C-alpha cells in the first residue's frame, strides 16, 4: 500500500502520448503494407473488375493496368503510394477519378455518427442491464444473463437482416430504412440511424453488461460503500456518487476498446441497411478493386481505433493515479 504522497504531474501522461504516437506511426505503416499487399493478392484486379465482361482482350486489360500503374512490381507501387501519402495525397479513386479524401470524408462522417450512436446505445443498454443483474444477483438476474447469452450467440448481421425483413413485411408503411442525410433533416437522419445502430450495439452491449455487472459487484463490496450507507445517505446518492462513479471507469474503458468491433460490424450493418457510410463504401470498393480507396479506408479505420485506444489509456492513467493504492 502506498501511503506516501505522490505529486500528480502531467508528465507520465505526456510520455504516454509521445510513446503512443511513435507506436501509432509504426502501426499505421504496418497496416498500410499489409492492406496494400493483401488487396493485390486477391484473385482478380481492378482491370478485370473494370472491364466487367467475361471475354476481354488482353490488350485492353494491359492498357488499363498501365494507365493506373498496376503493371509495376508491387513494391514499386507501394513506395510510390507511400511517398504521396506522406505528403498528404492519398490518390484518386480508380472508379470515380475523384480525390480519395473527398470521396471518403462525407462517408466517414456517417460511419462516425453510426458508430458513436451505437457506442452510446451499448453503454446505455449494457450499463442498465449490467447494473440490474448485479442488483438482482441470485434472484432473477438469470433473465438478463440469458438474454445476454442469446445476443452474443446471434451475429449482428442476422439480427439486422431479420429486422429489415420483418419491418419490410409487417410495417412497410413505416419506411424505417430510408437513410436521410444529416443536412437534409437532422432529426430524420438520427432517426434513420437508430435501428442500424441498435443492431450494431447489441453484441457490444453484452460485453458492457457483463463488465458492468462485475464492476458493480466488485465496488459494492468495498468498504466505502458501507461507510456511505452508515452516513445515512439516501440510496440514490450511494448508488450514483459511490457505486457508479467507481464502477464506470472500467466500463467506459471496455466500451472504448470495442470501437474496433463496432467499426468492423458497421461494414455489414451499413450494407444491410443501405447506409452510405464508409463500411458500405469499403464493401463496394473491394468489389471493384478500387485500391486507393480501400487503402485509405483501412488506414483511417486503424487510425480511429488507435486514437480511441489512446484516449481510453489516458482516461485510465488518470483514474489509476487516483486509485493507485488499491
Amino acid at each position, binding site marked *: *500500500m*502506498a*501511503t*506516501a*504522497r505522490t505529486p500528480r504531474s502531467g508528465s507520465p501522461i505526456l510520455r504516454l502520448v509521445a510513446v503512443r504516437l511513435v507506436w501509432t506511426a509504426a502501426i499505421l505503416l504496418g497496416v498500410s503494407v499489409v492492406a496494400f499487399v493483401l488487396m493485390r493478392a486477391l484473385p482478380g484486379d481492378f482491370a478485370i473488375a473494370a472491364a466487367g465482361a467475361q471475354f476481354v482482350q488482353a490488350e485492353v486489360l494491359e492498357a488499363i493496368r498501365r494507365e493506373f500503374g498496376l503493371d509495376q512490381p508491387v513494391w514499386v507501387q507501394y513506395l510510390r503510394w507511400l511517398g504521396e501519402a506522406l505528403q498528404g495525397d492519398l490518390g484518386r479513386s480508380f472508379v470515380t477519378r475523384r480525390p480519395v479524401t473527398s470521396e471518403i470524408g462525407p462517408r466517414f462522417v456517417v460511419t462516425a455518427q453510426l458508430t458513436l450512436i451505437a457506442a452510446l446505445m451499448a453503454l446505455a443498454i449494457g450499463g442498465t442491464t449490467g447494473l440490474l443483474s448485479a442488483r438482482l*444477483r441470485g434472484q432473477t438476474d438469470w433473465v438478463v444473463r440469458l438474454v445476454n447469452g442469446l445476443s452474443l450467440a446471434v451475429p449482428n448481421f442476422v439480427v439486422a437482416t431479420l429486422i429489415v425483413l420483418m419491418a419490410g413485411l409487417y410495417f412497410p408503411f413505416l419506411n424505417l430504412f430510408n437513410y436521410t442525410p444529416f443536412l437534409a433533416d437532422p432529426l430524420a437522419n438520427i432517426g434513420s440511424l437508430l435501428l442500424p445502430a441498435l443492431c450494431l450495439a447489441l453484441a457490444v452491449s453484452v460485453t458492457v453488461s457483463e463488465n458492468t455487472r462485475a464492476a458493480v*459487484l466488485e465496488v*459494492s*463490496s*468495498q*468498504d*466505502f*460503500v*458501507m*461507510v*456511505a*450507507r*452508515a*452516513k*445515512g*445517505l*439516501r440510496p440514490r*446518492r450511494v448508488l450514483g*456518487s*459511490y457505486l457508479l*462513479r*467507481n464502477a464506470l*471507469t472500467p466500463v467506459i474503458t471496455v466500451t472504448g476498446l470495442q470501437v474496433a468491433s463496432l467499426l468492423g460490424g458497421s461494414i455489414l450493418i451499413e450494407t444491410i441497411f443501405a447506409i452510405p457510410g464508409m463500411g458500405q463504401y469499403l464493401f463496394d470498393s473491394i468489389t471493384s478493386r478500387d485500391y486507393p480507396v480501400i487503402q485509405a479506408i483501412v488506414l483511417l479505420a486503424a487510425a480511429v481505433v488507435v486514437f480511441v485506444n489512446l484516449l481510453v489509456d489516458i482516461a485510465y492513467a488518470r*483514474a489509476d*493515479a*487516483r*486509485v*493507485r*493504492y*488499491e
Partner: protein
Amino acid sequence: MTADAPLLEVRDLAARFVARAETVEAVRGISFDIRPGEAVGFVGESGCGKSVTARAILRLAPEGSTVALSGSVRYRGQDLLALSERAIRAVRGRRIAMVFQDPMTSLNPVMTVGAQIEDMLREHTDLSRTAIRERAVELLDQVGIENARARVHDHPHQFSGGMRQRVLIAIAISCNPDLLIADEPTTALDVIVQAQILRLLLRLREQMGMSLMLITHDFGVVAGMVERVNVMYRGRIVETGEVDRVFAAPAHPYTRALLDAVPRLAIARGPA
C-alpha cells in the same frame, strides 16, 4: 428521559446470516446499555461478532448478505429495529455515527475528502452551501489535519493511513452524533499512529460529550479509553464490568486468556 436513562438499550439482540443452505448465528442474544457521555469497550477475538453487533445497531448488512435481526435496540426509548428505512437513515450518521477498521478502503477514491464530508452535512442539515463548505474545513482542522482549507480539495490517495482515519472521524462527528461507534479504528495502523488516533477520539468525546462504543480485540486499547468493558465470546457477552475491575480481577476464564495475550507494555501503561 432522566439524566441517567441509557442512551442505547440493547436487549436480546441476535443476528443471523441467512444464506440459501444454512444460517450462521453471529450474535446470539446480547444485552447491554450505553449511557449518555459514557465510553464502553467491546473486546473479543476475531470472529466473535463485534462488527456484526455494531452494524446491527444501525441495521447495516454487508453487501450481498441478508441478516435477520431479533431483540430490540432502543435509542432514547425508540426501537431502531422497528423503524422504517427512511427513519433509520435519519439516525445513521446524524445520531449514531460509525468509524470503521480500514481507513485505506473506507474513503471513496474518486471524491475529494471535502466532498465526502459535505454530502453527509447536506443529507442531515439545512446549512447553506457556503456554510457546509466552511464546516468541512473546520472539521478537518478539528481532527488535526494541517492546512485544512487547502486539503479539502485533495483526494484520499493524497493522505496517509492515519490521516485518512482522521478524515473518517471528521465525517463521523460532522453532525454532532450522540454516539460514536468505533469498530477497531486503529487495528490497521502502526503503533504510534494508533496512540494518536485514540487520543483524538478521547479528546473529541470530551469536547462533544458524546458516547463512545469502542470495539477492539486488544485489551491494551481499551485501557485508559473507556469506563466499562464488555467481553464478547462466540456471539455472547461473557463478562461485563468496570474496566479497572475486569483488569484486576477477571471473572471469566476467557477474559483471563485475553488479558494474558496483552503484551506487558500495554498492561504497564494500564488503565488511567
